[in-house]
């Protein structure tokens, strides 16, 4: 469904993403993990058409999409959420979600009705007439998700939807993400909290210093010495092994 090949992006002298390649199978949940500052959000921005890449290629559903502006990608079904939530603060929850609905729905009345339906799906129906500015951080993350879902995406890019949430809130969000996949949406998500994605994703890519250093099923990733070192520092894998022995 999504193929990313050799994407490179530097900001001045800083190489944010270097030769990154990954692929997302239709109907799967794929995770892109890595420590803070690894370049996940930059790579996401490039895939979603928000940041131009220096080199590389991206295909979505067989079509090359690098350089296609974000709003056009949303129309063909590739939609992202933001790590730093971006609510339409002056609007209510319903109006926020309705903006997403309007991508496919011309009628305002129908879009507002559909927004209520989406709000129910993500468990926000009690908050529907609240102003978005008054939501908690967990509420805003949910709203971010709801708005993106309202556009009826084929591939949803979730940028750290779990970040900043407490364990209870994460536990509530995980089944929701699963339900979205069950409804036929392919998911690519970034996370720096590893545990959060290990139970969710089928395929995991690890980004460190802008490079993909490992990929595979979650069980293989957690045992990978390169991944442990990326998170815990050079030599950590060997020390851990020693401690276990």
């Amino acid at each position: 469904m999504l193929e990313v090949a050799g994407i490179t992006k530097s900001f001045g002298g800083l190489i944010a993403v270097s030769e990154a390649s990954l692929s997302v199978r239709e109907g799967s949940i794929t995770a892109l993990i890595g420590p803070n500052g690894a370049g996940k959000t930059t790579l996401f921005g490039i895939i979603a058409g928000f940041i131009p890449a220096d080199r590389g290629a991206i295909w979505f559903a067989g079509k090359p999409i690098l350089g296609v502006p974000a709003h056009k990608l949303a129309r063909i079904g590739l939609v992202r959420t933001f790590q730093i939530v971006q609510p339409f603060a002056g609007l209510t929850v319903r109006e926020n979600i309705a903006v997403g609905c309007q991508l496919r729905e011309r009628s305002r009345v129908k879009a507002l009705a559909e927004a209520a339906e989406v709000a129910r799906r993500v468990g926000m129906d009690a908050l529907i007439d609240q102003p978005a500015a008054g939501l908690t951080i967990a509420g805003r993350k949910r709203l971010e998700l709801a708005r993106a879902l309202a556009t009826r995406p084929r591939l949803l890019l979730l940028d750290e939807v779990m970040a900043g949430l407490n364990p209870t809130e994460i536990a509530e969000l995980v089944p929701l993400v699963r339900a979205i996949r069950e409804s036929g949406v392919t998911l690519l998500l970034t996370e720096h909290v590893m545990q959060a994605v290990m139970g969710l994703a089928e395929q995991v890519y690890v980004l460190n210093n802008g490079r993909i250093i490992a990929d595979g099923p979650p069980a293989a990733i957690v045992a990978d010495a390169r991944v442990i070192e990326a998170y815990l520092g050079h030599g950590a894998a060997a020390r851990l092994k020693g401690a276990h022995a």
Partner: protein
Amino acid sequence: MKTKGALVIALLVALIPLPLLVHSDFWLHFAIMTLYFALLGQAWNLLGGYGGQRSFGHAAFFGTGAYAAAMLQLDFGISPWAGLVLAGLLGAAAGALVGALSFRYGLRGSYFALVTLAFAEVFRIVADSVPFTGAGVGLQIPLRQSAANFQFADKAGFYAVILALTVLATGLAWWIENSRFGAALVAVRENENAARALGIDIDRTKLGAILISGALSGLAGSFYVQYYLYIDPRIAYGVEVSVAALLVPLIGGTGTVLGPLVGALALRTLNEVSGGLTGGAPGLNLVLYGALLIVILAFLPDGLVSLVTRLRRRHA
């Protein structure tokens, strides 16, 4: 604040027989000026209120419409009624020019305000220097009173025209509140990045808004020329028009259907009252406008229309 747009339109339609009830020229002039300011304010509101693109130079569109209306009948002998339509189109074209340049380069907030102000000033200087606008002398429309010539002997005729134009502008605001385009426009105002992520072409949305806003300003300019039969660069492109266009919705309530009507009524009333108080000393009414604006921004940032919701909340 959400207003029931249909109710506002109904209110305006109910004002149609006003000239039959009010025979005083003073009050009819007051009504015409109020509606004219409401039109100008609503033009600004569609772009600045709903779209969040706060222009400081609506005179650029207003003046273009005014000069178009004047020059088309003076130099080309075109009927002022056709001139009215063309003034709207040219106002939209001026809007498209300013919009295409500033939105393309991502100018927002104060930068957009400054660029629009600069455009209006450039237009004023050009109009002041070239011969075909009559330069500093201005253009005078010869008096030939007839309805076919868009010059009415009776103020009721002008009243009917400005009421129709205001209904059009108010109808557009109502449409914005209930359409996909309007939802996109408000989304762009609230958060451009989020709007893009949800499939909204932000440049096109803003351009659409400035086109409509420019067209309505051009219509207001054309009306002004027919009402006063005179235009010069300072009136057409001066800062007074730009300030009036933004003051009306800011005082009444931006991003609402009713706001510009309320704002226009408040400003015109203040203008009449202050005329009596200050003995017509030039510039003093501007001081009052400034004071009112400060009071409104400090205590009622959502404009006079938000008073209703506030009072209702207090009594609830």
